[in-house]
């Protein structure tokens, strides 16, 4: 996996997402999930593009069920966007048709809100 994408667990959520001080893109993924595999290279490319300006994190849903439930995540992949203050913003992206350009547009919007 790309050096720009970090895998976290529910225990890291407060620190890595809410306290990042940067926009955060968080991807809930599962195994046996072709759309998740399809997203991975696009997610990594976006992470590289925004390196140093936004954080790209992944979390394995099967081992972090409670957090998924708390956030109302019921499908994989689901991509959530958080602003610098750790507030979730905008619509989530999910399913097979997540485009790299859609991730890019949302991160740019978060960066523009400074």
């Amino acid at each position, binding site marked *: 996996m790309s050096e720009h994408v970090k895998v976290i667990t529910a225990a890291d959520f407060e620190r890595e997402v809410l306290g990042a001080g940067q926009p955060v893109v968080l991807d809930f993924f599962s195994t046996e999930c072709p759309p998740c595999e399809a997203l991975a290279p696009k997610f990594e490319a976006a992470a590289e593009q925004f390196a140093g300006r936004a954080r790209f994190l992944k979390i394995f849903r099967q081992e972090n069920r409670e957090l998924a439930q708390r956030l109302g995540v*019921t499908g994989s992949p689901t991509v959530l966007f958080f602003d610098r203050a750790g507030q979730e913003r905008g619509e989530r992206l999910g*399913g097979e048709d997540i485009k790299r*350009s859609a991730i890019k547009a949302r991160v740019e919007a978060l960066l523009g809100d400074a």
Partner: protein
Amino acid sequence: MPTHDLVIVGAGPAGLAAAIYAARARLRTVVLDESVAGGQVKTTHKVSNYPGFPEDVKGTDLAAAFARQAERFGATIRRAVEITAHDLSGAVKRLELDEEETVDAPAVIVATGARPRQLGVPGEAKYRGRGISSCATCDGAYFEGKEVHVIGGGNSAVEEALFLTRFARRVTVVVRRGELRAEAASVEEALAHPAIEILWNSAPRAFAGEGALQRMTVEDLSTGQTREVPTDGVFVFIGSEPRADLLKGLVPLDPAGYVLAGEDMSTPVPGLYVAGDLRAKSFRQITTAVADGTIAALAAQRYLKAAARPAA
């Protein structure tokens, strides 16, 4: 010189069958896909009617096998690339990838298939990924011990309803008619299954919930009465709609948006072919997609040969 002899758009069964034939004919072949290889097959939990597999085969395994076979003969499969610009009308057809790279070729086969059709009822977009799904293999495990609904009565709906019984406590199939259109073997299994219930002559009308999906409004089509039912998850399998965006304005479409093509998969644009689910036809199966892909590759091969030959 163009980068390739043949560009195939879409790495589902049609595109990969075309790639196998083209690569074996020694055409410089690239297959482009927005996702990983396999098209709609890769999210089908099992395939029972594809010849050559006397036992059921997982959709994801079948998709991977198609891809490996194409790659073995030298086709390149580009995964997770987005086509950001294109011109398919000329003698050399160009496609821009991710705004940073261009591939071109004298022949293109568009095999972009179809995407799951949406219901188009209030709340559907809001709760997609928050309880509404089109992929049972991806999301079924989220509903361990829960109560889910499957919308639709065709093969996919019934097969995926059976699959969901591995996780869900109860699976209710909501079907518009008084019968299931799926293959008889699956219908028998579903009707006999203790965890599956059928809501006949019914259609969803709205979705609601606080944060995540919690309730669905269902209309009884025989009386016109609606009622609200509690639900934890809804899986929608009501067929598909063509992904013909690349071809809009370039080739004739039928009223539903499927591409009208010749028996040899050709379009009115020389060197431009279609194959698979996006083509206007009566039956959309893995086997028929593979047949389309085969024909398109052979027709493209003949076209390239004729184009290379100097005019007599």
